């Protein structure tokens, strides 16, 4: 009967890329679920950014693909009307899924399934995107490629992103602001604004940011 969140309050500006960082079991997924309208047992309020399309997409911690549809059918489930077949081809290609389009989810490795879930999210061309550890269980190379892809997608269209991650480097590479949470019941422990332009964040720059971060939040990660 203990609250999972208590007085958790933060803001993400439209078109901003925010990361949620916090210990395992603190309430990150719960927060995402509330914002997605999946959990109703909470007090307080939230507001999603309003724009024309108002499409939402999410990548859950587990891929949650429909087992009775192939990878391609899963991705086409919520396809943005604007998207052409060649856009889809491109998407499958960068995600390394071209050979897997007609496989069923039970025939995928976890990493492939996760990428299929990412493809589904990108294919909706969302204006708000929720990601719950999207790059876990991927090898570093693939993860890096996908991080770059995410950055590209984010630059190309005005998308508000809220991403949960346990990987601080990843957060520093991608986010505009990092929201650090306390252990359960989750509260905002502090906010770290990454004031460096995204183009300039190469490996050494991220190392510097890392030091910065550790100075401000010495007891985290």
């Amino acid at each position: 009967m203990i609250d999972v969140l208590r007085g958790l309050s933060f803001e993400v500006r439209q078109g901003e890329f925010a990361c949620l960082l916090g210990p395992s079991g603190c309430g990150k997924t719960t927060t995402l679920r509330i914002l997605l309208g999946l959990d109703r047992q909470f007090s307080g309020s939230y507001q999603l950014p309003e724009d024309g399309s108002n499409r939402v997409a999410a990548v859950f911690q587990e891929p949650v693909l429909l087992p009775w549809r192939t990878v391609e059918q899963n991705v086409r489930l919520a396809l943005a009307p604007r998207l052409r077949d060649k856009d889809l081809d491109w998407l499958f290609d960068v995600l390394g899924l071209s050979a897997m389009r007609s496989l069923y989810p039970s025939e995928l490795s976890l990493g492939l399934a996760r990428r299929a879930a990412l493809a589904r999210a990108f294919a909706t061309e969302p204006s708000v995107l929720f990601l719950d550890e999207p790059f876990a269980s991927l090898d570093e190379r693939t993860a890096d490629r996908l991080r770059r892809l995410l950055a590209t997608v984010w630059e190309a269209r005005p998308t508000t992103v809220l991403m949960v991650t346990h990987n601080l480097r990843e957060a520093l590479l991608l986010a505009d602001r990092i929201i650090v949470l306390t252990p359960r019941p989750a509260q905002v422990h502090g906010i770290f604004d990454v004031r460096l332009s995204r183009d300039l964040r190469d490996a050494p720059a991220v190392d510097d940011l890392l030091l910065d971060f550790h100075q401000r939040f010495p007891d985290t990660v």
Partner: protein
Amino acid sequence: MRAGLGSANGASANRRMRIVLQGIGSVLPAATVALSLLGLGLIWSLAADLWPSRAFPPPLAVWRVLLKEAASGDLGYHLAMTLWRVAAAYVVAMLFGSVIGVLLGTHRRADTFFNPWLVLFLNLPALVVIVLAYIWFGLTEAAAVGAVAVNKIPNVVVTMREGARALDFRYAEMATVYRLGPLDYLRHILMPQLQPYFAAASRSGIALIWKIVLVVELLGRSSGVGFQIYLYFQIFDVAAILAYTLAFVAIMLLIELLLVQPFERHATRWRRPA
């Protein structure tokens, strides 16, 4: 995007809700059931008023017959006979049906081979099985119960087979890795997954069995609700037919509310409250 979440308790709220439900659990359902039965009685009595017919007596007339039959001891006797037959056939049918169903559901070859047999037995009219049973084994209780079970087993097989086909292989693999014994496997892996299918087979099963028991009693028993119902059908005493029917339904309802539902609530308490 702004979020000011005072106190969200995805988890705990659910738990609290569950506890609340359990707290009310003992009172609310009873009230709802009473209300539900009242509603049914009202509709019935209204309908009987609107379309009066000898074939559709009002609840009160049925109630009076019920009391009379109960007072004479007939109701109790015949009900008891029918109930024991239903219970015996149920146990036999569920046991054999579940085992066969799970085996067929998990062995594709056997399934292909035996499927035609299953279709045959599934579609064999109750009449044929019952008459054969009586002719071969005489007009005994064993023949009666056996005939009912044979009628019902294919239905159980079909349902449990679907359940076995839909098993999640990940749990079986986990059991293989951790070398669970066959008994543990049965109790902890197989049965929880088959529970909804078992519940479905069981519920519609008892109803089907009771209906076949009626035919069995009609064709060759000198006691039981089926015997009585058919007697009253010949003199077209619908009130008496309904009285016997409702007496059985009432008992089924009691079993459902006092045994089946608490058990099911217990067996499915791990599911997310809807």
